């Protein structure tokens, strides 16, 4: 009888433990020592107020080793036809990863393109790449400049062979992707990982919002112009990213000679539309617009003040297009430019994590 009772208690105890077991979905992740040389996951720190949804493909999670490999590839001219040009040739960190003061970038043969090299910044939140948004991921974007005859001019077959035969790369691929076999897919994944770490959120404006820095009277007036209908910049250059990442015809031309987004969508309503660029670090990344037509911020503000051109697809946000623009006086223009300069983040352009 005694044994039966003990057995009964034991059964109840097991039942109790089983029933009250914590929901497996709430379990903390089990951290184990890594003896298989698996790459170390890299965690993005999201700045205050920035989007929490990151544009990272499920098949290319960030790792320390993948980012290191991507950095080496980004700065290595091995991906060009004559070993003279790397990604960094047109995307220099000192200039917000843009091509300093060049309207159009020059490829290895001296040929030039038709669009300005965009700045590379806060890419992990971008849903489209290129001015016309024809690439949905950085991985897809990277494919183009390497093979483009007027850019790096190297077939991907040759690119893969060159990287494979390099003394250093197979081991780095092994560390990042657990294979010494180099592929086009893995090259683009590594570069994409590196570029996804490009985060800028420490401008004077950011610090002013956090009450740890100040703005001058002129910069504050510029802030008010930017964020009211007086300047009406905020509709496109919105949120903490200073871009809506959408496509707009911003009234540059009465007859746009570059159809822009329409080349991708084949929709005539998209003629002359281009992706809104961020204004973060804008003072570092001259010239401006998709075709780099404006050399200075002064020229840009003059355009929005009195140079707008009506066309069939001009964006409704360009409210004052029929009167040429928002008609700012000289002081207001200067105030607005002074505010735009507060969006500069010197730490970003000198951050050694992004340097060769």
């Amino acid at each position, binding site marked *: 009888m005694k044994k039966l009772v003990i057995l009964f208690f034991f059964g109840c105890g097991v*039942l*109790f433990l089983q029933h009250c077991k914590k929901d497996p979905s709430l379990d903390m992740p089990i951290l184990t020592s890594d003896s298989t040389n698996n790459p170390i996951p890299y965690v993005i720190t999201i700045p205050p107020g920035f989007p*929490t949804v990151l544009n990272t493909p499920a098949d290319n999670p960030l790792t320390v080793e993948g980012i290191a490999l991507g950095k080496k590839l980004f700065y290595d001219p091995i991906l060009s036809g004559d070993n003279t040009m790397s990604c960094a040739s047109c995307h220099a960190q000192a200039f917000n990863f843009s091509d300093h003061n060049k309207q159009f970038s020059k490829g290895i043969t001296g040929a030039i393109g038709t669009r300005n090299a965009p700045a590379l910044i806060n890419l992990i939140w971008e849903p489209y790449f290129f001015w016309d948004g024809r690439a949905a991921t950085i991985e897809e974007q990277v494919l183009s400049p390497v093979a483009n005859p007027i850019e790096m001019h190297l077939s991907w077959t040759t690119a893969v062979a060159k990287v494979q035969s390099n003394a250093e790369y197979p081991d780095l691929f092994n560390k990042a992707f657990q294979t010494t076999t180099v592929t086009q897919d893995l090259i683009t994944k590594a570069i994409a990982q590196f570029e996804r770490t490009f985060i800028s959120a420490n401008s004077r404006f950011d610090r002013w919002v956090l009450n740890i820095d100040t703005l001058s009277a002129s910069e504050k007036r510029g802030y008010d112009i930017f*964020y009211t*209908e007086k300047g009406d910049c905020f509709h496109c250059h*919105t949120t903490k990213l200073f871009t809506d990442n959408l496509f707009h015809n911003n009234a540059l031309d009465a007859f746009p000679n570059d159809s822009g987004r329409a080349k991708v969508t084949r929709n005539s309503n998209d003629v002359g539309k281009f992706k809104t660029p961020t204004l973060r670090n804008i003072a570092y990344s001259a010239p401006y617009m998709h075709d780099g037509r404006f050399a200075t911020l002064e020229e840009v503000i003059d355009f929005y003040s009195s140079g707008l051109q009506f066309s069939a697809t001009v*964006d409704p946000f360009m409210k004052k297009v*029929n009167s040429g623009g928002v008609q700012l006086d000289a002081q207001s223009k200067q105030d607005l430019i002074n505010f735009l300069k507060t969006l500069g983040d010197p730490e970003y352009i000198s951050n050694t994590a992004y340097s060769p």
Partner: protein
Amino acid sequence: MKLVIKAVFVFFIITVMLIACKKEKALAPATPQSIHLKFVFSHTIDGAPVVLDTIKYLNKAGNLYSIINLKYFICNIVLHKGSDSIIIDDAHYVDIRDNATLTYSPSQLIANGSYDHISFIFGSDASKNKTNNFVNPPESNMEWPVPMGGGYHYMQLEGKFDSATVVKNYNVHTGALSGIPYYIPVHLSQSTFTANGTDLTVNLAMNINKWFENPNTYNFNIYGDSMMGNDTAQKVLQQNGADVFSVSSIK
């Protein structure tokens, strides 16, 4: 015998603890709320489905206009049922160009019974209209600038209109201006319904022309551009917006 009594006692205690571990089930309401509700948004001009990007619509002021963009928030849907009204404390974003936003299925389930009518807030009330409440697009792109009061646009309705043979842009952007709320409590007529065990779809239609006609005539030549900071325009649209929505069906 004593041992048996002890065993029964322990069994009782354990049973109580097991029930405690199943707290959610223990607190289940007597009347099960098991019906899913789905809202479907459509947009018309006086009953005809909207065709975007074409200057072909005429408002009461005589403006011939097109619709290029229409984005807006609704929040705080209430299913009125005497003292048992159900409040769906959530916000939903609609973009006429994004089919995914044209249906809204609240996670909250409702119980069987008769409901008197449906109401909601067009825009956002003070509890939701706070800068940084939305950090992810597309909702975050509706930001209403801090120097103009902060929060989010209630609505962005935009297009072109023919003004004496000159085509111009118009923007109808509503929001809380400098802290003054202009959101619109919408009480839907003909929204009585009975939930009877099956999921329900509420089809809501916005007649865009209604923004411009009742009780105030809204003229793009007067308010067409830079109207965000115009108190009068915001008031006019707030008054006009009470009847822009109607219920096409609940089934």
